[in-house]
């Protein structure tokens, strides 16, 4: 396949993105559903949230915005992760995570969601730099 003639570092970066992205997916939705007051910690200070086309800038504002949403329960159907090569991000380690599934908000009908994240490694801790969510009827 493609990877045989690519430098070994790319394979390592893909493996790292899979490991980080897989852990992120389970931690993010568990925190979102069960202990949402803690979710702000997962965002970078300068993060951008786009919730159904509504922009929210900065960790504190995002924390408040998400706290004000009704209680919910997510079921993840699929997810995918990729590394962004450091040559494009001033040498920072970054990954893209795409997730899809269904979400049930209290007093609302079941909705399907697709969510796209960019994460960056800040001193060994992965932080959400951008988070774009879209909902629709399933």
């Amino acid at each position: 396949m493609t990877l045989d003639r690519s430098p070994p570092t790319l394979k390592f970066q893909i493996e790292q993105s899979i490991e980080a992205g897989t852990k992120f997916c389970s931690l993010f939705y568990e925190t979102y559903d069960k202990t949402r007051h803690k979710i702000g910690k997962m965002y970078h200070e300068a993060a951008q949230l786009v919730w159904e086309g509504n922009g929210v800038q900065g960790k504190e504002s995002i924390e408040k915005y998400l706290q004000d949403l009704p209680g919910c329960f997510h079921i993840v159907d699929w997810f995918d992760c990729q590394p962004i090569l450091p040559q494009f991000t001033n040498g920072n380690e970054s990954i893209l995570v795409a997730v899809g599934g269904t979400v049930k908000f209290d007093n609302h009908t079941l909705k399907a969601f697709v969510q796209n994240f960019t994460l960056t490694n800040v001193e060994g801790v992965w932080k959400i730099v951008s988070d774009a969510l879209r909902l629709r009827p399933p």
Partner: protein
Amino acid sequence: VKFDVDKTRLPTSVPDFMPTTGQDIIKQFIQQFFKCYDESRSQLSEAYHENCIFTLSLPQSPRGPALSHYFSVSRNLKRIKDTAKKISTVTTSRNDVISLLVKLNGTTHYFSSFSVDVPLITSTVVNFIVRGVFKENGSNGVLRSFSRNFFCQISNTSLQIVNEQYFLRNPTSDELREAKTYASKQKSSSNVSQQSE
């Protein structure tokens, strides 16, 4: 005594999230990219960086017309348990991305169905997600919905795709209903462009 228990409302949906700066370059890229994707996909090389990374994902249990045509290249990390397959389903160079894309069904995208979110833009990179509906070419003309996440490098006034995550599914009943109006709009707009030529 009041209790703030009215946390039942969801924010109203907004069709697009676009920055004022850089909006034109993004819109222009999307127009050109999908036109080329529909009409001459093998010519898309310039749109992709030589070290680009590409993946395609499908829902776990799709309803509606079979998506089996896409199964061989699809990557769902929730479903794949084999480490080697988790890696082999990532396409990692411009040439390999183009050879993969040309193998996929021919398409006609409905531009009026598109909506775009731009969650991240700096002076050097931009991340945007394009969602919409397309028709597969051929006698049965099956409709599909897509969400394509692009991470691009900005060089001068053009964009080059560094990463792409392509998600494909069957449309909802609302999307199928709306697609009829898209199809007629598309037809009338292509007539207009033919007349002006």
